[in-house]
């Protein structure tokens, strides 16, 4: 269940790619331990929005605060926020030249400044948690897509983040591997992690989300509980989108 404290607060976030406006002023606040699922047609700006939260994209107007720190051009703030916010990508983005364990321990050692032994302990514990302890010494290329995505989740968790961002984590996976990743995410949600998930998995949204947001044309069109969302959507564009995918 969500707590009382706001951990992410966005106000009037606007973003342009050249002349094209990708975000038309998004307002959102996320409470601690809340699971927020963002859906919407492709090109609707939902990925761009969550990538703004850890500054992989730079927003031009509005404010974004994470855990009380405002995202500005100040490098210290950016690095501080990035180490509090874990991110899982659509295409995993594991480091192919490092073993699975090294992928996970890199951040703890060099950013969190843990000793190698501590970091490896954290790494093995997390691999255990995502269900692939036996793969620690393999290279990412030797793993299946689902396993790679679980390593990516472990890598993000190793930084002990306060918030996890998921950018379409199952879209690049073969159908039979989607479930193992979703199961890992469900387990994470039930452990009380604050999560922002961009996804097309409506089953996951219905089952796990505290709140569902619908994005279209770069703005937040509708938001509500999964129940409200899948049974009595208000907006025409939401109805149209849901009728196309359900």
């Amino acid at each position, binding site marked *: 269940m969500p707590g009382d404290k706001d951990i992410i607060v966005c106000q009037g976030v606007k973003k342009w790619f050249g002349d094209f406006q990708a975000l038309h002023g998004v307002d959102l606040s996320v409470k601690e331990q809340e699971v927020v699922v963002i859906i919407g047609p492709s090109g609707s700006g939902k990925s761009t929005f969550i990538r703004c939260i*850890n*500054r*992989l994209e730079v927003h031009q107007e509005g404010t974004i605060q994470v855990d009380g720190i405002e995202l500005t051009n100040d490098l*210290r703030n950016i*690095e*501080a926020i*990035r*180490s509090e*916010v*874990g*991110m899982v*990508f659509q*295409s995993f*983005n*594991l*480091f*192919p*030249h*490092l*073993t699975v364990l090294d992928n996970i321990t*890199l*951040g703890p*050692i*060099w*950013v969190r*400044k*843990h*000793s*190698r032994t501590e970091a490896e302990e954290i790494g093995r514990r997390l691999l255990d948690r995502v*269900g692939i302890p036996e793969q620690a010494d393999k*290279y*990412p*290329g030797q793993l299946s897509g689902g396993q790679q995505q679980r390593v990516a989740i472990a*890598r*993000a968790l190793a*930084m002990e983040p306060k918030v996890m961002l998921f950018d379409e984590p199952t879209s690049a996976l073969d159908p039979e591997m989607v479930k*193992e990743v979703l199961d890992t995410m469900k387990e994470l949600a039930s452990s009380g992690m604050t999560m922002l998930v961009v996804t097309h998995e409506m089953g996951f949204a219905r089952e796990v989300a505290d709140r569902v947001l619908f994005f279209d044309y770069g703005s937040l069109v509708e938001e509500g509980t999964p129940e409200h969302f899948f049974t009595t959507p208000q907006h025409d564009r939401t109805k149209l989108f849901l009728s196309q995918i359900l």
Partner: protein
Amino acid sequence: MEQKQYPVSIDLGIPESAAAPEPPPSGPWVWMRTNLFSSPFNSVLSVVTVALLAAVVHGVIGWAIDEGRLWRAVGQNSRLLMVQAYPVEHFWRVWVSVGSVAVLAGLSFAYFRVGSKIAWRDLSRISMAFGAVLSLVSLSTMFHFLAADRTPRLTILALVVGLILIFVPRMYTARLGDAAKEPTIPTMGLVALGLLVLIGLIWIAQAPVPGVSEEGFNIDVWEPIATSTKLPWTVVILSGIAAFGIGTVLRDRVEGLRQVLISAWVLSAPIIYMILFRGPDIDWPEVLTLDLPVWLGFSVLGGLFLRWAADDKSGELGRFLSGAIFVVGLASLLFIDTLMLFKVSTIALGTFGMLAPTFGGSPAARRQFLIGWASSMLVIVVIFRMADSASALGFRGSNFLGGLALTFALAIFGIALSFPLGVVLALGRTSTMPILRTVCTFYIELVRSVPLITWLFASANLFQLFIPGGLEVDNVVRAIGAITLFSAAYLAENVRGGLQSIGKGQYEAADALGMSVVQKTSFIILPQALKAVIPALVGQVISLFKDTSLVAIIGLFDLLLIAKNVIPGQSQFLGSFMEAIVAVAVIYWVFTFAFSRASLRLEKRLGLGTR
């Protein structure tokens, strides 16, 4: 994770006999049919090519063993080809250099676990190939000898050895059966064995030398080869092998061996340079009163500062102070009148201070960082001491050393210096900072648009005009400088290719972990970028090695110049060009081939982590 259970057998309606496994057809005939005679055109091509190849090889061998060949032009000039006119009483300097490189190489090979294991089956294949070549060559030689009514003495021996190489390992492999496929023989052991055989050869083998018989006729006398060098070579090779053994024992027992080895390599370059070219007359009292305090002071006090700067608590103040120290160091170059040693050390301290927050994370990383600082200071102090000391040699070393030694000196220093410079230039050219990018691009394009020979010429003749009078920079150093600056531009373009092959996702993943730019570049981007362009980098190294022959234009006597101009001018070998040129070609081939094989191995070894 639970596993899905599938039914154990599925009836697909295939009769039992059809599914029974059969070994695929194999054997030499099958191989020849599929690869050499698969179509009429292919068959014709195979036959014609083999015939052509045989004719060429037969012709070359005929030329090589012709009685008119003066191969002793190479043998008797081997000292000239190796070190040119370096004085004999100073040869120990060359041997000390070669020996220390051998020891360092042995230790490093052991520490970095160079070399793997090879299976008997693969070894027997290699041996077969060697044996086949040796047998064919000796057969061809035998024909030539018989045709010229000469007695084929050594060729029979060579033929026997060739046949043994073909058949004995093969028979042993067959007896081993499947065990022969298991890689069990350590390659470094084979290398050591080969080196021991080489030692044996230089003690036993003999070559004909012109002499006078008892009756006063000019005849060939058989004498041992390598009379004066066999003892030093034996010592060098044995100490290299011994160092490998010691390294194997030490590598898991001693902590920090990595840092020691790296700084030893870095230090070995200036030390070898000084031993060979200057033999510095070191002012020991000054070493004790100046160098030692400077080194200790900067290592300890600077180390304390770095330790503080690496700590999170010092935060921005640490970075700010380091930046200030760096700027003061740079400014002192122009405005403060003090020893250059202090200025450079200050700049180094500032640089390390700015890097400290990045690398000084965990206690272990911080310890390594501080060891790195102390050894860098040692390198700086040693280089300054050596450059400051007068030459104790009674001759200008660089004017006398030539031949293969010079070729190696140019190539090794050129590669070692141009590599880091090239990487920095590539990073600069791909950076987002416009001024840095422009400067790097301009440098790369300028250097690449002018031939190396022009840069060498400029370094020899124009360089003196740009430096203050009285300061004299050695010819060899100038050549190394020109080669380094030239090669760095090409290396930079190769590395840039590698940098561009790294996907955006890698940068984003590193960013998302909160890594700094330096961490991202050194742990994520560069390792992958360099690995992606190993073939191109090795190509650059090989071409640099061969390009060193261009220093002939500025009056340095490299291997090729000696073979081309010096040997044919000697009275007893007047006009015999080809022998020495061929010998030089073989020397170049041996080293470049070794480079390219080593790079293949490196690629294979690093290839594990590819996508």
